[in-house]
């Protein structure tokens, strides 16, 4: 029995030491955290999630601390007075017996304190649970927000890429338009040159044709003249023959 009491006393001391260490560490971290967010923000805008993560981390640690505190209340809420002794042997037994008597004697006014402790302990336990739930919900929302944010960022990147592509396309169209304008101008020049050439060729051909027609008409005119001469000659010959025949007939009549 005496060893069991001693061990309980030692466990309580260890727990208190652990809690004291946690408390010191959290304090030092809180001190750093109170300085870091500003520094972090100043350091880089790109790391926009760092303060938020620090807050998350801080909240989780606070909840952990509260949880660790609640181990004390869960353990000590009904110890009024605590039935422990730092003595040993019979003295310890006497002391514990006295304390037990006192506990029994003082029950009439400690039981309300015990009730209060129990209520406070359970209220805190429920609060921690609620806070934990809120924290988890908040983390889920944050995760969703992160996803949406990353999607938004991706959309922005995509839009930026599209914008750059559109710019490039526009530049390409402009270059093509300029090239086409040059080509059209060159083709127009070429067509103008060809048209002038065709016009010149047509003019030459017309001149040649007129030339040829002139010579053909001259040939026809000369042929017509020849035919007229031949006809005239034949007519005169025929008239001469008729005259001769007439003369012969006259001679015959005479």
């Amino acid at each position, binding site marked *: 029995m005496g060893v069991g009491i001693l061990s309980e006393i030692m466990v309580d001391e260890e727990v208190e030491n652990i809690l004291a260490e946690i408390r010191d560490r959290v304090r030092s971290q809180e001190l750093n955290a109170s300085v870091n967010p500003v520094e972090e923000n100043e350091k880089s805008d790109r790391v926009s999630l760092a303060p938020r993560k620090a807050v998350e981390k801080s909240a989780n640690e606070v909840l952990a601390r509260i949880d660790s505190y609640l181990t004390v209340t869960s353990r000590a809420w009904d110890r009024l007075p605590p039935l422990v002794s730092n003595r040993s042997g019979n003295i310890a037994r006497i002391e514990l017996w006295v304390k037990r008597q006192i506990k029994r004697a003082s029950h009439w006014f400690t039981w309300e304190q015990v009730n209060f402790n129990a209520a406070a302990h359970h209220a805190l336990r429920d609060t921690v649970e609620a806070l934990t739930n809120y924290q988890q919900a908040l983390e889920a929302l944050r995760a969703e927000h992160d996803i949406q944010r990353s999607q938004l960022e991706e959309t922005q990147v995509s839009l930026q890429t599209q914008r750059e592509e559109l710019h490039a396309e526009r530049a390409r169209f402009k270059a093509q338009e300029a090239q086409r304008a040059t080509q059209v101008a060159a083709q127009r020049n070429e067509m103008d040159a060809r048209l002038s050439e065709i016009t010149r060729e047509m003019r030459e051909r017309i001149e*040649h044709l007129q*030339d*040829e027609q002139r*010579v053909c008409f*001259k040939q026809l005119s000369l042929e017509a*003249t*020849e035919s007229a*001469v031949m006809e005239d000659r034949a007519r005169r010959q025929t008239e001469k023959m008729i005259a001769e025949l007439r003369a012969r007939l006259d001679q015959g009549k005479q």
Partner: protein
Amino acid sequence: MSPPKDNLYQRAGIDSEAEFYRTKFVSDEVLDERYFKGLDRFDIRFARTLWVYDNVRAGSSVLDLGCGAGMLALLKRKGGTLTGVDISDECVISARRNGYDASYQAKLSQLPFPDASFDHVVSLDVIGHIDFEEKDAVLAEVKRVLRPDGVTLHGIECTDRSARKNYDEMEPEELRRFVEIDGHVGLEEEEEHAARFGRFFTNVAWEPRYALNLSSEEFLKQADQYGLPFEDDFLDYLRGLSHSERRAFDMAMGYVFNKISDLHIRLPKSGLYVLLKAANVPLGPFYNEHRDRSGLFSPDNRSELAGGSESEPVCLDRSPRVTFDDGWYEPNLLPPIARWMSRAGRVSFRSPRLSAISLDISTHLPDLGEKPLGLELFLNGTRLCALSLFRYGWLELRVPVPQSVSATDGGEFVLELRAERTWQPRPTKDETRDDRELSVAVCNIVIE
């Protein structure tokens, strides 16, 4: 040779005979008698024409059966009327352009003339193109339109059955190739032609010809397309001849052809060609029955040039009294009708007066743009002018004749045109080869 049952043209894949003959025999060749050069009477190309010319009575009416482009236009030089008939309407137009008095498109077995319309019915290279089934109908028509005392004259392609296959023996492709060459669907041997005419006319005379004399072109055609066996080195020699050498060859061949006729030497059968005369009256001599070649040329050049009054200009192009020497090629329808000249050409004529000469000149010289063509005009050896052609088209040239030159005794003139260079239109050895040495084309040579 037994006539085949169906139409050989159809068997040879020729649907339209008129179209076939249009593509074969219509050309821009000038056969108008007014442009005939006297020297060409020796050209073997005109040998058959001259045989007809020497056997047609002056002033007679002649029907040219299957007139083509008008190979018998020269008959106009004997006076009379010359009528043509052909199955191709374009041949009809071509014949009229070459001086035929009239020409008609008709089937030869349905002639559009009344009975006894002509003193002579003549054909050259036609009877061999008539299908066997139609031949008798054609000869019946010839007899119908011929006057009772008329004489019909024919130059007919023949075959040698011992050397050539019958039409019935030919494979379809072989037949197609054979007919495609010239359209020969009615070739018979000489005696068979004579016998066929004998059924319609009481008197028939015939002479195998072209056994010895062919034009250089015909030698090559007979060898290359009909497979006649001539010596290879001879054919190679003919292929290598230039235009002027071919002309010399053809002139020599034509000269010998005429001499054979004049001497009435009967040649052996050749299976190539027969000249045939037929009539229902007694026939005269086979050759030169009505020979009078005064119309072809003027030996003494003393005849008056066409052009009546003193003041009237005279055109030398078409006058039979004017001699164009061999420096001029045969006229071409450019248009107009003009003569191409080689490096130099002379025109001989007589005229009581000469104060100016005008002419139209053109050239197709390819490098005219780079280098003008120098020309000189001489009259009786005196240079009248020198000029350069530097553009295409026709140049009208009028040159006054100095009194010192025009007062030549006797009024005999030789007009000479000289060009400093020539070109050959198509000198390469293909089907359209034309290696004539051309300088300028000249027409409308008018003296005032």
